[in-house]
């Protein structure tokens, strides 16, 4: 009697929704491959000519043209590219001649690491700040925090990176990347400034969303109940408001994952870190289209996968959804 049978029915509805979400993700990914493919092929001009430059001999262009299979019909090219991509083969880089997959595999870890550290930095900065801001809403701390947030979003991360270099170049390493094998401190010290530069802007976004979530949560009836029962304001914020506010915040973090990845590529160039950023930028300048296609596709796949992951973890964190899936 206690457990309404309705919950069961909803559970089935949810299974359907999860399937729908999966189908939607598949459509998006397929569409993304078409988009990535077309970007290079529909644009007027011969990619082979573009890659080799104006001075190249017609024979050389013709050779590369054939080598890349550009003389085949577009559909055929797309299909073979897609099938190869599914097998992990994204072709060879024109300028570096190495397989794109191998090139990306070397670099992507570094970029992802910066993005993850930046995310951590942003959470460490934003969550306590949003708690303070929402707790003393309208107070000086809250109002100045909101100005700082606008600044945080407005300041380009790469420019902040330069300012950080100016400020900390005598204390922290400002260029390059040290693998973990060089020692833990060596490794992390190289990541501090890039992560802060990238994380600061992200912190502003997380702060904004979490602050609004907190303010909405503390206006809910359950917070009034908790207050009416004499539960301390501190506990109300940490146990009641934050847990409810954090759910929408997680969604925003997922949506922003791609931008963190893109931002990491920019910040990398400032610190001369050998990640995806430098690689892709050089590829774009050299019109090395297999490498550009591969890099973009991998970024999109990561982005979409992170979003799906966020959706799933959201369901695990929110008991209302978790229980329905089990039931």
């Amino acid at each position: 009697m206690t457990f309404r049978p309705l919950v069961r029915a909803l559970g089935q509805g949810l299974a359907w929704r999860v399937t729908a979400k999966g189908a939607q993700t598949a459509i998006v990914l397929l569409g993304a491959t078409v988009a990535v493919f077309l970007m290079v092929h529909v644009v007027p001009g011969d990619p082979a000519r573009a890659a080799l430059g104006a001075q190249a001999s017609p024979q050389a262009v013709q050779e590369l043209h054939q080598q890349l299979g550009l003389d085949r019909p577009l559909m055929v090219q797309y299909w073979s590219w897609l099938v190869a991509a599914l097998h992990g083969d994204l072709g060879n880089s024109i300028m570096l001649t190495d397989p794109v997959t191998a090139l990306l595999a070397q670099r992507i870890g570094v970029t992802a690491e910066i993005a993850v550290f930046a995310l951590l930095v942003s959470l460490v900065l934003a969550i306590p700040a949003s708690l303070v801001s929402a707790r003393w809403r309208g107070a000086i701390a809250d109002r100045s925090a909101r100005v700082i947030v606008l600044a945080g979003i407005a300041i380009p991360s790469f420019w902040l990176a330069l300012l950080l270099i100016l400020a900390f170049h005598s204390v922290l390493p400002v260029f390059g990347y040290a693998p973990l094998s060089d020692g833990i401190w060596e490794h992390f010290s190289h990541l501090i400034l890039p992560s802060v530069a990238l994380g600061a802007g992200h912190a502003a976004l997380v702060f904004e969303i979490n602050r609004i979530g907190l303010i909405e949560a503390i206006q809910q009836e359950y917070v009034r109940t908790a207050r009416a029962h004499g539960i301390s304001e501190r506990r109300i914020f940490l146990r009641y408001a934050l847990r409810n506010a954090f759910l929408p915040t997680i969604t925003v973090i997922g949506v922003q994952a791609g931008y963190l990845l893109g931002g990491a590529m920019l910040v990398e160039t400032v610190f001369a870190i050998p990640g995806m950023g430098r690689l892709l930028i050089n590829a774009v300048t050299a019109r090395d289209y297999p490498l550009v296609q591969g890099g973009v596709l991998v970024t999109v796949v990561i982005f979409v996968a992170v979003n799906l992951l966020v959706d799933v973890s959201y369901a695990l964190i929110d008991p209302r959804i978790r229980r329905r899936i089990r039931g």
Partner: protein
Amino acid sequence: MADVVRVSVRRGPLPRIRTDPAFAIALFLFACYVVVAVAAPVLVPHDPNAQQLRDILRGPSGSHLLGTDEYGRDMLSRLLLGVRSSMVVGAVVALISSAGGLLLGLVSGYMRGVVDFVISRIVDVGLAFPTLVLSLALISALGVGSTSTMIALSLGFIPFSARVLRSAVLGLRQEGFIESAHVTGVHPARIVVRHVLPNLLGTLAVQTTMVFAYALLGEAGLSFIGLGVQPPTPSLGNMIASGQVHALEAPGLTVAPGLAAAVIIMTLLFIGDALRDAADPLTVR
């Protein structure tokens, strides 16, 4: 609870915004940037490309208020022209993506059915590309330059505007006056022009302002990595990049253009926020 919630907000949004001093300051700053963008060629004290190799990396002085760069060019002049090219990119991108987003949003939200489904899936695909990464792909196809930057960023922001405007259109369709116009047999095109469009203006203004801000960020990023506006034409992004080399000897070369970018972006974000609050006074702020 019901008793408490009944406290009604009876303030008109626009009067509140008009009297807000912070909003006035933001509008003033925005106006300054617009004036610079339009009139930079006549405002510049020096030829921005004239190199004076005996006067490189000089600090601020009477004849060069912001000093000179590594080629002895006048920083202030370059900064003014940099603002101009960045503002042009930002404005063009904001207008194109708002127009494109409006078109897609209207068609999608108004026709619904198959058309809506197809457009929505395309928008989904667009949203799966982080703007910077999409721009990289497009620029690799189009070649570097400010036109490519504008095209790439516009295409990058259209999905966002389309999604926002579609949901605004869907919201409007629920409104009584539009339903009743349908029932009384008013031609759909007329309904769109007479009833839907005027009610979308608020959302459109907010969206255009926000995209303007993010487009400026995007231009700065692309030009910074050398894929946007190409030197010697100055833009805020490529000035930060070229100043980077001399950041330790002459920090002003990177600080000034970055600051100029941050101020206008912040101003636009603030105006966008204020417009959104005015359009929807019930949102928590």
